[in-house]
């Protein structure tokens, strides 16, 4: 996927001016946070579970080679095949080779963010294979040729009218008098179309929420059931998973399942939680004849051992973006690549380079809400700050900001001179605001005064006033 992250500021301008996007964001904003709060309140041990989740992930990351090898051996034992891929290119090639070997014409897909990272749909299409997204949100995005704007609710940015419009434009057999009054009407229409595709597909591609080392299983968590049809109906099932998805045991999976849905949608459990272990055995009633896992690194091992390692704990629940005031102001597409919101602001620079994604970790007020809801306690603001440090070291930060900071720091390290400078500034600003207590525009503070007045100082600095009071014996 081509990153537009370098154009973050332009993306934001567009997003703020997009009335339909703003409407969708305002509509969904209260619901996620409210549902999570209720779900968490109903589970007294939720806080402890977060610690347990964090610790399991830390343990895995410290022993990643061991757990991946154990998992891989168990996949092979259950009749599956693991394809180890270092890069996105390797992964695309592996998927294509499996599809071509299976003689695939149509491939159904469950929702998977890593598949967006690989831009696998484009790759398959280029080679004459039709990929069909079967998650309702992803399906409409495929019709509209748009990327997801949210990691669990991909069509977060669309209103009901947008759905109707896309269906009418793409489903040419639709009678004109068909009504799309409710969500159910949309579902019915999508279901009808997708059923044909499910039955026609030669290969099904899903992601994985977890890979379980002790059994070699992959786990998907969905609400629509499309993932199950994707992975059981076709002859071949391909799982796309990045390396940090592995966890040790089934018991651990239970811990994460208790955290995941509550953090994501405020459900106790998602509607479907499905474990896949290997290919179909002779006595099985259904299941694919071939079970492949394309295991993807694509830059993640580069994070291990660095200050960004903690980001690899992420279970992609989306709680951080669901609670992010910046995300709800600019929408997911503004972030310009696969992963939006706070988790994207940390992960994207690691995967596509901080030179391209440098805006993302800067576009945060460090309000800390994301960290406070993250089920595996990733210190997202701290990690964003680490990116800013990298940018500062590499002189990627804007020169203007850098020199302002240097001037300020020079004074701040010299209290005497600092007092003189602030004394002057306080008087000058106060004089500018005389009679009003504020100014409406100020050339060197244009960023501030574009959207708000600048309240002006009282006039005398604290230290000047304090010294005066001391001299006058008033203290």
């Amino acid at each position, binding site marked *: 996927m081509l990153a537009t992250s370098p154009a973050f*500021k332009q993306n*934001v*301008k567009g997003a*703020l001016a997009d009335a339909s996007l703003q409407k969708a964001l305002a509509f969904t904003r209260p619901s996620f946070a409210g549902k999570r709060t209720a779900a968490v309140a109903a589970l007294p041990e939720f806080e402890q579970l977060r610690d347990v989740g964090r610790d399991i992930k830390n343990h895995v990351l410290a022993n990643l080679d061991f757990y991946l090898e154990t998992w891989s051996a168990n996949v092979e034992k259950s009749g599956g095949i693991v394809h180890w891929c270092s890069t996105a290119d390797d992964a695309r090639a592996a998927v294509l080779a499996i599809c071509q070997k299976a003689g695939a014409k149509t491939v159904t897909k469950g929702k998977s963010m890593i598949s967006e990272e690989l831009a696998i749909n484009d790759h398959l299409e280029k080679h004459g294979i039709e990929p069909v997204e079967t998650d309702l949100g992803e399906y409409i995005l495929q019709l509209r040729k748009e990327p997801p704007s949210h990691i669990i609710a991909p069509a977060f940015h669309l209103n009901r009218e947008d759905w109707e419009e896309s269906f009418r434009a793409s489903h040419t057999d639709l009678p004109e008098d068909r009504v799309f009054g409710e969500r159910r009407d949309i579902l019915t229409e999508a279901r009808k179309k997708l059923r044909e595709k499910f039955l026609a597909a030669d290969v099904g591609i899903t992601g994985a929420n977890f890979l379980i080392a002790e059994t070699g299983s992959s786990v998907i968590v969905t609400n629509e059931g499309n993932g199950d049809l994707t992975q059981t109906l076709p002859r071949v099932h391909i799982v796309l998973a990045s390396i940090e998805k592995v966890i040790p045991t089934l018991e651990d999976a239970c811990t994460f399942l208790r955290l995941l849905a509550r953090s994501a949608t405020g459900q106790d459990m998602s509607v479907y939680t499905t474990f896949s272990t290997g290919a179909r055995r002779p006595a099985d009633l259904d299941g694919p004849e071939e079970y492949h896992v394309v295991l993807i690194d694509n830059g993640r091992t580069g994070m291990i051992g660095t200050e960004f390692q903690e980001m690899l704990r992420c279970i992609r629940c989306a709680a951080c973006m669901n609670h992010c*005031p*910046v995300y709800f*102001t600019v929408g997911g597409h503004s972030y310009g690549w696969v992963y939006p919101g706070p988790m994207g602001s940390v992960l994207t620079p690691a995967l596509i380079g901080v030179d391209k994604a440098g805006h993302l970790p*800067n*576009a*945060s*007020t*460090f*309000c*800390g*809400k994301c960290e*406070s809801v993250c089920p595996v306690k990733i210190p997202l603001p701290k990690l964003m*700050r680490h*990116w*800013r*440090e*990298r*940018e*500062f*070291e590499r002189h990627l*930060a804007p020169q203007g*900001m850098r020199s302002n*900071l240097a001037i*300020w*720091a020079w004074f*701040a*390290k010299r*209290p005497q001179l*600092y007092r003189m400078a*602030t004394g002057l*500034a*306080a008087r000058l600003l106060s004089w500018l*605001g*005389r009679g*009003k*207590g*504020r100014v*409406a525009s100020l050339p060197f*503070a244009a*960023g*501030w005064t*574009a*959207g*708000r*007045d*600048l*309240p*002006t*100082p*009282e006039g*005398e*600095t*604290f*230290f000047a*006033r*304090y010294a005066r009071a001391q001299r006058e014996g008033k203290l």
Partner: protein
Amino acid sequence: MSQPAPPPSRRPRVALFVTCLVDLHRPTVGFAAIRLLEQAGCQVEVPRAQTCCGQPAYNAGDRATARDLAASILDAFSGYDYIVAPSGSCAGMISHHFSGLFDNDPQQRTRAEALQAKTFELIAFLTDVIKITTVPAVYQGTATYHDSCSGLRELGLKSQPRALLASVSGLALKEMVEPETCCGFGGTFCVKYPDISTRMVSDKTRDIAATGADTLLAGDLGCLLNMAGRLKREGSPIKVRHIAEVLAGMTNDTPPIGEARG
């Protein structure tokens, strides 16, 4: 027979960390802090060598400058019982981030750890350490209180300001929806991304106005300047003040933020 009263313990020596914004912009907040601390029985001193906690550098990724400024604060503030700041953000910087700046310098790290254990935000210090429950202030009006992010999430400041405000005679508190949502200030964020920041603060002022309160209070001057600036731009008559001014009964000393003495 009644027990003899324990000897009065020495008055705690508190060093006021004024914060650079209060110093430059609103000294009254510093004097309000001094009054509140003295009323609570503290001996207050203001170390002269202080400037800024270093947060602008720290959040800009300039660790070296942040470390230098932190080091001078370690020097200026050694030897006190407590360090108190009328800002959750600056108090949080000292109490949650300073020691991490000295990862490679065990000696300084130890000093930073000692300092951070003694550093408090003003309201939290008054309620949680000195354990005052009331203030003798009067304020006629209906106020709404914004929870600034660092104070709330780093320092756990939530019930304390409300408890003290409840003791101010004449003051009624009316909560806004989402008082915990960031106002969009974020230090240099507000000038680096003014479009986003303006939208965020507009959401905030909408929620503030919806309460019908005539006064907006918070504990961090950065957020207050941001919200006051937006309210004034919108032509709102809502008065904006630092919570310390109200608790110290000093609202006659200075007009609300962004307003002239009238």
